[in-house]
């Protein structure tokens, strides 16, 4: 009986922790929906959520060009580092040249 009550209280603690985790995100969302030009007080759901703020932010921040830059970086970095790391991983793990251990250690710290 006591054990199950303890389990319940632990679950409640877990739920509280999850709420604490999403709280900052919810508060960011609520302030994102406030009417333009106002400074919201605390966390409160606006009576008429201003979803168009997202469109405005998208345009004001020139989001498309920024996103394209990010995509370019991803397209360059991911295949290249994957290829290099796969080659090196194969070389080190399968063929075990001299100095394998020190090399693996130093490159993982870098």
């Amino acid at each position, binding site marked *: 009986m006591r*054990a199950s009550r*303890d*389990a319940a209280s*632990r*679950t409640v*603690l*877990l739920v509280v*922790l*999850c709420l*604490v*985790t*999403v*709280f*900052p*995100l919810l*508060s*960011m969302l609520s*302030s994102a929906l406030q009417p333009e030009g106002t*400074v*919201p*007080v*605390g*966390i409160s759901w606006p009576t008429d959520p201003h979803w168009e703020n997202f469109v405005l932010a998208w345009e004001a921040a020139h989001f498309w060009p920024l996103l394209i830059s990010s995509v370019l970086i991803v397209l360059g970095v991911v295949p290249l580092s994957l*290829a*290099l*790391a796969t*080659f*090196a991983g*194969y*070389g*080190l793990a*399968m*063929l*075990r*040249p*001299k100095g394998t251990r020190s*090399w693996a250690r130093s*490159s993982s*710290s*870098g």
Partner: protein
Amino acid sequence: MSSPVASPRRAARAAAASRRPRRRAWSGLLWVLPAAVAYGTFVLYPLWETVRYSFFDWDGIGVATFSGAANYLRVLTDDELRLSIVHAFVLIVFFSFLPILVALFVAAVLRDMRSRTGTTVARVVLFIPQVLPLVASGIAWTWMYSTTGPINQVLGALGLGDLARPWLADFTTALPAVGIIGTWVALGFCVVLLSAGIGNIDPALYEATALDGAGWWQQFRHVTIPGLRSEITICLTVTTISALSSFDLVYVSTSGGPGYQTMVPAVEIYRLVFIENRVGQGSALAVVLTVLVLLIVGLLQRIGRTDES
């Protein structure tokens, strides 16, 4: 080797066997070469240049004058520079110890939970901060902590309005406040790693201790924590590095202020090199930070290894 008189065929085989590893070794190095070149150009060379800069007095444009160890002496004697390192160590408590303690508890609770969806939801929710860019987290929390922000609102609602303050601008609370953001971010990583590790602990151990009458806390202390030793070491290593080299969160939320209260080495290096144009001084601090990180990581690895065996 086994018989004193080796047959010619056996000798030939032995020679081939001893030659083979050497040929393998060379082709192995060939595979490693591209990564080694990339590592050399993008890690070792800049590192070497940083070490070189750190012995000069240089504004980044003009003539550099050799200044010996003066930059390093200043890291030890200058209050601002020394404080930034002290702050980094304070942040380890928040970025590393706190999330690991909470995550151990969460992982143990998740293990006991019957409902599969419950554990999945909890794990996903706690992992969300890891997925966000640190800059976004910093902005979300800056708003949380602001004078009219949600934290003070909640305090007011609970009748604790006296405690309300601009958390990030208050001299005593700024550093812990930044630290809590780090705890919030690191928790998800630790939970996922530790709860994966807990799955590898032999369930028989839990059964046996339960039959012997061990309560939840005793199981937690004597089965879970020892069973997670290597996972805890990984968590400690990764989060400690993130604490010592923290930049994004601090730069976005306080950029070192108020005064010097939350200045950390990474932000200080950035300021020295790119704003105050003291490239040599910034490089010296960067070298000190790198050495500190390597020392601590080495130490943690050693602790983890000896305890494991």
